[in-house]
Structures are given as C-alpha cells and as structure tokens.
C-alpha cells in the first residue's frame, strides 16, 4: 500500500470522512447560513432596485383620472392590473391652463384578451408621441425610431409569438421593441400610439368582442383615461393639486410622491423583517457551529493529545481543527448559495407576484458582488466559530489528556 504524508489537509479530510453524520450536520448549518445570507441580500437588493425603478417609472408628478379611479390607476402602475376608465379629452386642455402646470400628456387605457388561448388580460396603453414625457424615455432605451401606426411596444413580461408579433381581436400587430424590465406594471402592458389604439378598438368591434373591451360607449377620439402632469419648477404638488381641483370637477388626482411613499413604507417593513431574519439566522448558525466544534474538540481530546505526543506542534493541532472547519464552510457555503440561486432566480416572477411590490433582480455585477460577500462570510464562519476550540485543543497537556478517565 502506498504511504502518503500526513499533512494537515489530509488529516482534516480523514477526520471529516470518519464521521459523515457529524460532517453532514455541520455542512447543513453552514448551508443554512449561506442560504440566508445570499438569499436575504438578493431579496433586499431586488426590492431596493424595484423601488428605484418605480421612482423612475412614475415620471409624471401628478396623474389626473376620472373620479374614484385612483386605486385603479395605482394598480396599473404597480402591477399592470388591466383597468379601463375614461373622461372627456377637453380636460387635458383645461389642466394645461392651470397655474403651476408645466407639461401635460394624456393616455388611453384598454384591457384586452389576447386572441390566442392561454393568456390573461393585457393592459394596452395608448399615448400621444408628441406630448408624452413618461413612456418614451423608456422606449428610447431599446428603440430609437418613431413608433408607426400598427406597431406596438411590449413590456418585458409580455410573451411574444415566434414571429415577434401579438394578436389582438383577430388582427396581428408587429412588436417594434420590447422594453427592459422595470418591475412595475409597465412589464405587463403594451404601448401604442393613438392611431393604433383606434385600429385595435375597431378590430374589437369587428370581432364582436365587447366583453373585454368596454369601449362601445366611448368615443375614442374624444376620450382619455388619464392626464399626466409635470409640475413647473417653483410649485409643489399640493399647490398644483389644489389649483386643478378649483378649476375642474369630477376628477381624482394621484400624487406620484404618495404612491412612491406608500410603496416605500410597505417595503421598509419587509426589508427590516428580511434583515432581522438574516442576522438572527447568521448569529444562530455561528453559535451552533461554535458549540458543535467545541463538543467535537472535547470528544477528540485523546486523539489530539496523541498527535501532540508523536511530535505535532500546537500550531499543527490548531491547523487541523481550523482546516476541518474551513472545508465544512466551503462545502456548506457553496451548497447554500446554489440552493438560494435555484429559488431566487427562476421564481423571481412568482416572488414578485406574491409580494405585490416592485421587485427587480440586480444586474450581473451586483449579483456577483453579493455572491462574493456571501461566500466570504460563509467560508469565514466555520474557522471563526472554531477558533476558540482549536486554540483550546492545541493547548491541552498531552499526558493529562491521554490519562484522562483512567
């Protein structure tokens, strides 16, 4: 049989192999720690990204909607929940005249069912390319030409046909571009200019599909769903809201800062919960590891003393215990981050749906940074928890330890 030098690493590996149940338990503790650290940090970062994206998405300072439709509008913005409500287009001109208003742009909403099977209603948002200041900055990120009649822009979570088209009411529309993910209702919406909206409504009428597009009673040429308002510098949202209310009746006003603030408040509670759970799990894991390593070292007193008696230095004994803990940490940390990745990344849409909050996964660079930090923390946790036991084990007197219990 070939003899191999008894290095620190080899001794540690033999020790770990000799007690697979104990090793598996320690690996599992580090796995939980790594899972909580990487999963928790990814979740927190995704929520923060989502909030940032929502701030950008809101674009306008105020949204004027028909009376009592504030919640519907917020549903469209936050989750893309299909809604339809209309008021007279002349309101847009009236708002434009109000003191403190810098820009206005109207939008037209219809909800529809894709003609193909297996789809949910889609929110279609019609906008005026000449006045729009909310949608086009997002479109410009992926599409640099003017959107023609019959063309549509799809949100990131709209699943396209193989031919890059979408079919509504027996008519096929070319998808000019698909937007980047925003983690807001934008991802589930489809955008088009007003001419395309008219084509869509005509198509719905021809197909006799009035169930999902309730626009029979609405004159598309004279109706809008919302008027988005940009406030002039030097004015605040409350003042302009009061000015608009004084001049126009039968409307509701949604303040973007309120939508953002209420989402941020909800998110703060969740973030605090995630951070607390992660911290508690991390502390518990360190405590459990420290106790287990201490018990392990106590149980191996004689073995370590024998190694001392055959010439192993204190540093060597210390090294064996620390190497074992490092190997356990590497295995557990890697498995934990893999497990977290398998849950966080593939199920991101589901998580977002269940949370009901803006949720945007971080980009590759940030993900790698979080991964690096989580792995570093997990890899360090074992040696950190085992340091005391390692030093204690190496300091024990060999003679006393060997004779102990006799």
């Amino acid at each position, binding site marked *: 049989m070939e003899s191999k030098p008894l290095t620190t690493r080899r001794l540690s590996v033999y020790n770990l192999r000799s007690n697979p149940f104990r090793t598996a338990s320690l690996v599992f503790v580090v796995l939980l720690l790594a899972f909580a650290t990487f999963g928790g940090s990814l979740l927190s970062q995704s929520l923060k990204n989502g909030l940032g994206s929502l701030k950008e998405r809101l674009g306008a300072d105020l949204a004027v909607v028909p009376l009592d439709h504030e919640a519907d509008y917020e549903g469209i913005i936050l989750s893309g929940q299909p809604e339809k409500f209309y008021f007279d287009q002349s309101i847009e001109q009236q708002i434009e005249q109000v003191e403190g208003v810098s820009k206005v742009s109207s939008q037209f909403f219809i909800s529809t069912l894709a003609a193909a*099977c*297996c789809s*949910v209603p889609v929110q279609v948002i019609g906008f005026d390319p000449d006045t729009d200041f909310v949608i086009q900055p997002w479109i410009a990120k992926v599409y640099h030409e003017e959107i023609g009649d019959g063309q549509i822009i799809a949100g990131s979570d709209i699943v396209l046909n193989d031919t890059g088209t979408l079919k509504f009411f027996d008519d096929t529309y070319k998808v000019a571009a698909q937007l980047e993910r925003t983690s807001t209702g934008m991802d589930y919406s489809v955008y088009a200019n007003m001419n395309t909206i008219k084509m869509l409504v005509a198509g719905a009428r021809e197909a006799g599909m009035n169930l999902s597009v309730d626009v029979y009673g609405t004159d598309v040429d004279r109706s809008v769903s919302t008027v988005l308002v940009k406030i002039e510098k030097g004015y605040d949202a409350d003042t302009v809201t009061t000015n608009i209310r004084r001049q126009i009746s039968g409307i509701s006003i949604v303040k973007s800062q309120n939508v953002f603030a209420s989402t941020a408040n909800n998110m703060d509670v969740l973030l605090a919960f995630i951070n607390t759970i992660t911290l508690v799990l991390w502390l518990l894991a360190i405590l459990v590891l420290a106790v287990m390593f201490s018990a392990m070292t106590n149980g191996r007193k004689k073995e370590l003393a024998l190694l001392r008696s055959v010439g192993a230095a204190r540093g060597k004994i210390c090294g064996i215990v620390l190497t074992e803990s490092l190997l356990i940490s590497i295995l557990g940390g890697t498995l934990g981050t893999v497990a977290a990745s398998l849950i966080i990344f593939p199920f991101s*849409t*589901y998580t977002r*749906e269940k949370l009901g909050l803006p949720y945007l996964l971080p980009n590759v660079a940030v993900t790698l940074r979080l991964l690096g930090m989580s792995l570093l923390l997990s890899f360090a946790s074992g040696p950190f928890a085992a340091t005391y036991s390692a030093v204690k084990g190496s300091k024990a007197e060999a003679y006393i330890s060997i004779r102990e219990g006799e």
Partner: protein
Amino acid sequence: MKNKFIFGFLSIAIGLLIALGPLTIFPVCGVHEHSEEVMKCFWTARAELGVGFSISILGLLSIISGNPKFRLGLAVAILLNGILAFLFPAVLIGVCGSARMNCRALTLPALSILSSLIVIASIIQAAYLRYTNKEGTEEHGKQTAND
C-alpha cells in the same frame, strides 16, 4: 451500495414531484377562467404525470436490482426521462403565454429545476457505474490471465 440507495430514493422523490407537483404543490392553470378552454399547461401536466411516475419506478428498480450493468441501463433510462420531463414544458408542449400565469411563473421553473437535478444525478450515477464496472472487469481480466 450506498450510492444505489441514494440515487434510487432521489429518483423516486424527484419522479413523484415531477408527476404530482404540477397537480398539487406547483399547480398548472388547467382550464381558462373566461373561455373555459383547456390550456396547453394542462397537457404538460398530464405528460409529466406519465414521465414522473416512470422515473420513480425506474428509481425503485434501481434500488431492487443487484446487477450493476442493469443499474447502468436504468440510470440511462432515467436520464432520458429527465430530458423529456424538461422538454415537455419548455419545448414539446409548452405552458401558457403570459409571464404572470401560474404555470409559467411557478410550474415551469420548478419542473426545469427538478428535471435538471435528475439529469445531473443520472449522469453522475451512470458515469460512476461505468467507471466501477470497467475497473471490476479489468481486475477480473488480469486475474484470469495470471491464473
């Protein structure tokens, strides 16, 4: 011996999850809410029911069988079934068209992960059995020559 049980029980567990998961833990949409039309994901769940039970039965046979060559064949069969379990929702039948529908947001990733796991496990098992069989055959051959 240990790996026979680990791989066998893993196959049974993953096979059952593939078969019953789309009907229980990570359910598909099934029938359309408005049109009452049977959706694509319904047929995917049906296909997964068959392929999942097939993986479980092959896993059970893998535990019962003592012949390494037979177990190698079973590992290859599980591998092929695993590939099918992956392809049904992703390519061959598919799931519904909207990103926020249950079958796309939940069932598809769950089935992809489970089928990938069983494919990886069966590749490792097949490679292990092939390696150990080869070693055994070579040693046996040498012994015969010396005799």
